[in-house]
């Protein structure tokens, strides 16, 4: 196969000429590289300067295109001069691309006017069409192309994503503080796939999936900035469920828009809103009810009417049933953490969008803490009047923007941390009962960055899966030995655990050069967090280390407050990360009385572990913690590979039943019923009730149920 160019489809006002350019270039034999449509945008003193299209090729350097959509050629020489000047001055800012005072990569410019065949232009400003372009490209030669990687990375990472956190004082170059600092510096640019995910703009629904730490939130934020820079007149909404993400979004959008346009974002065009909202803070659902004069439910009233766990789905569905004609106000809506939002909410977003319904939603399959992973787009958005799915993902086509993007590289968690989180989340090495949940589609393992080390990734077959240095970069784990990166500790009782936790945090701050805000303590059971963290916080306070408990009172803009160790329940930990993560009372995540709750509590453990950027300590109490620690030991023994027999269809079906979607109330009821049955069986065992005491008909029914 001859080399081919990849096309990254951004947002463009010139779709016809762009498509012809892409087709023309993709037919050229021996041309390798990437063609960007509607990208990059260069910030200049006069504002945003969008480039119509840019080809990056190891043989040709940077080839910038001025696209002419119709038959009006206009001042093409001026435009090409300008194009060259802007790109040249931008690239000169990268030391790796400069030799003495000259740019080490060639820049060529062309006007591409497919509707004006035969136009030639001038020597310094050539005009091409579909016939003459191949020849013109063939004439460009770049012999000494050693600086191509630098060129590619300069174009792909037009922004740095370094965190605007406090400067740290490092005295020992081997301290945790120094290591964390180095890690933060390494994760400062986007990779090519993330960059493509930012730019690729679909005229319709787009889904972005990826693991925790694969950069979904950053990609979404940069996408907002990109769309805003490219289409300043668009009304764009970005929505999420964790309040604490708002500050992060705002920072990223501001800095990216600034870099692309040299201007502040126009916040009247970008609505950064909660998914729910209230009269005091805007939100998608609240605004929907307000704009259409419908009943608004706040959390409390929604719970009263629709029941526990159905608050948001009930409220959004009610509003959509009441509304007669929806006023579509947005050109694009981007949803983060969609796995924690009901599908009815995504349908509401869809309704609020003008044609062609540009909805982008990002989610993490395994991070769902509410036990309800999202169905596929066909099911999610339902059918139209004719019975056809409203949204359908077509198979990926070369030269078209991707509707379904998977970010398979994980930049937050190191390989041992991520593999442990997966192994425990799925129960790969759980004894004696094994798997708790599994991906329905086996291929998903590969999509999220695993590779088959041994065996076969097929139903009923043994398989050994491992992460590669490609999908889990080594610099994430090379800073410390594995036994320091991840530890499990079992304690006799709560106070032992609290003492150890406090001592360890004091050591982190006083000797390891970590800042208090590098540390987060997560309690996985959301319903007990307030009560169970009090003692540890108090011990720290007495030692002069301040802490905060992330809760409703926390400002919507910050998660990490200055100079405090953050304690948090699992809900508010989501979307956030920290260098040092302590998980307390992890024994709560080992097992549950009824099987249906098991996936839920293991997901919490998964989420908690995957908050860690560098180190994680999993602490807990008693025999359950002991057992969890042993389960971890098995992961470690297998060198953080996942070795197991892939379930066959029958087992998958059983897991599906166990993990079916239940509300908290339904789960409680189930819990009680199973409890009744347990005590009935105990009564039979200890002779309190004799089998002969049971009515004949009941005995027959029991035989029928258990006989199978």
């Amino acid at each position: 196969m001859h080399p081919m160019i990849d096309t990254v489809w951004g947002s463009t006002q010139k779709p016809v000429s762009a498509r012809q350019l892409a087709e023309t270039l993709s037919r050229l034999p021996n041309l390798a590289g990437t063609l960007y449509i509607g990208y990059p945008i260069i910030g200049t003193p006069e504002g945003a300067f969008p480039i119509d299209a840019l080809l990056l090729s190891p043989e040709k350097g940077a080839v910038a295109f001025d696209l002419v959509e119709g038959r009006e050629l206009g001042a093409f020489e001026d435009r090409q001069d300008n194009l060259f000047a802007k790109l040249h001055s931008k690239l000169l800012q990268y030391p790796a691309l400069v030799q003495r005072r000259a740019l080490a990569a060639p820049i060529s410019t062309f006007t591409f006017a497919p509707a004006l065949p035969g136009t030639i232009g001038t020597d310094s400003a050539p005009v091409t069409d579909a016939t003459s372009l191949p020849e013109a490209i063939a004439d460009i030669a770049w012999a000494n192309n050693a600086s191509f990687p630098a060129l590619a990375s300069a174009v792909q990472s037009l922004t740095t994503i370094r965190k605007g956190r406090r400067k740290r004082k490092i005295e020992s170059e081997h301290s945790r503080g120094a290591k964390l600092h180095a890690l933060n510096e390494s994760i400062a640019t986007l990779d090519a796939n993330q960059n493509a995910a930012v730019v690729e703009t679909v005229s319709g629904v787009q889904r972005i999936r990826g693991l925790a730490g694969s950069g979904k939130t950053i990609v979404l934020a940069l996408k907002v900035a990109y769309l805003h820079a490219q289409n300043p007149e668009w009304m764009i909404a970005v929505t999420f469920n964790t309040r604490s993400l708002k500050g992060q979004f705002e920072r990223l959008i501001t800095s990216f828009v600034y870099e692309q346009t040299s201007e502040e974002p126009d916040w009247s065009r970008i609505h950064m809103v909660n998914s729910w909202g209230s009269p005091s803070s805007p939100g998608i659902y609240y605004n929907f009810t307000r704009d259409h004069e419908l009943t608004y439910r706040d959390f409390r009233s929604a719970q009263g009417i629709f029941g526990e766990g159905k608050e948001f789905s009930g409220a959004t569905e009610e509003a959509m049933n009441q509304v007669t004609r929806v006023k579509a106000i947005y050109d694009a809506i981007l949803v983060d953490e969609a796995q924690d939002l009901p599908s009815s909410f995504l349908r509401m977003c869809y309704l609020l969008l003008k044609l062609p319904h540009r909805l982008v939603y990002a989610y993490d399959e395994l991070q769902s803490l509410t036990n309800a992973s999202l169905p596929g787009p066909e099911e999610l958005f339902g059918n139209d009047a004719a019975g056809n799915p409203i949204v359908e993902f077509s198979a990926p086509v070369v030269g078209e923007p991707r509707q379904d993007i998977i970010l398979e590289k994980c930049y937050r968690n190191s390989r041992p941390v991520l593999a442990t989180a997966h192994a425990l989340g799925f129960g790969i090495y759980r004894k004696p009962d094994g798997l708790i949940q599994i991906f329905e589609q086996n291929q998903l393992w590969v999509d999220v960055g695993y590779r088959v080390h041994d065996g076969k990734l097929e139903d009923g077959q043994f398989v050994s899966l491992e992460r590669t240095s490609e999908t889990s970069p080594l610099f994430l784990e090379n800073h410390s030995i594995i036994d320091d990166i991840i530890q499990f500790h079992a304690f006799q009782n709560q106070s032992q655990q609290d003492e150890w936790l406090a001592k360890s945090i004091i050591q982190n701050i006083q000797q390891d050069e970590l800042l208090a805000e590098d540390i987060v303590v997560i309690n996985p059971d959301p319903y007990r967090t307030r009560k169970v963290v009090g003692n540890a916080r108090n011990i720290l306070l007495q030692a002069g280390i301040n802490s905060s408990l992330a809760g409703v009172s926390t400002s919507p803009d910050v998660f990490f407050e200055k100079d405090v160790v953050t304690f948090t329940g699992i809900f508010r930990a989501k979307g956030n990360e920290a260098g040092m993560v302590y998980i307390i009372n992890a024994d709560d995540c080992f097992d549950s009385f009824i099987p249906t709750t098991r996936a839920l509590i293991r997901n919490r453990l998964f989420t908690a572990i995957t908050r860690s950027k560098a180190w994680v300590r999993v602490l807990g109490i008693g025999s359950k913690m002991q057992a969890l620690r042993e389960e971890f030991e098995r992961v470690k023994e297998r060198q953080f590979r996942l070795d197991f027999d892939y379930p066959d269809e029958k087992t998958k079906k059983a897991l599906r039943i166990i993990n079916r979607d239940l509300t908290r109330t339904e789960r409680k009821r189930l819990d009680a019923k199973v409890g009744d049955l347990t005590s009935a069986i105990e009564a039979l065992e200890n002779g309190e009730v004799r089998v002969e005491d049971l009515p004949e008909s009941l005995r027959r029914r029991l035989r029928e149920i258990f006989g199978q």
Partner: protein
Amino acid sequence: MNHGQVCQQISQLISMLVKEGLCDHQRFPAVRTVGSQIQVTIPDAPDLAASLKGRPYTEIYEELRKAEAYNVRMLDGALIQFLFTFENNSLTSHRLAFFPSPLLEMYESIPEHYDLDETFADMVGEFSVKFPIRFDYSSSDDKHKDVEHPKSHLTLGQYKECRIPVNAPLTPFRFMRFILRNFYGPAYFAVDIDAKAKITEFPDVITPAERGILFVTA
């Protein structure tokens, strides 16, 4: 009580609230000497009282929260301040203030949502009216005007002339007992503050005329 004892009481209170999970963020009191005065105050926090006079309550609350000008931020966002001044080992003034969050529901009305850390618990449609509550004390005879400006008094909301006489200055425990008892009903008994509050008190400063109108006992 001297400044050391007051300081210790505030620290004890903070510990107690943290242990019970009632407090989300906290700052231990700092002791500062200014001339002959010893102040028990909030570390590094600017005194915003004067600059915020006459501003809408939502703004006042927001400014205080951002500047971390409080000793305690309660789980429902309410901010609590303890400021005491001593001279020659005796109390010369105090300002004890309670600023409930203007936008969050009070703990008392939905304790289970706060305890459970519901994700959308802060999505509140209708608000109850919230207003600040302050206990001020000044030992100065110059400032004191019988009945009109009692030495120790309670101010409700932002009413300029609201000064309900209080029989004596308040200890930190007695102030907190008032707050918990009235605004954090479900937690009041859990912390058992009543017994602790009874042990210490400041001597009476109320005048007979002030006793003649509606007054409050510390």
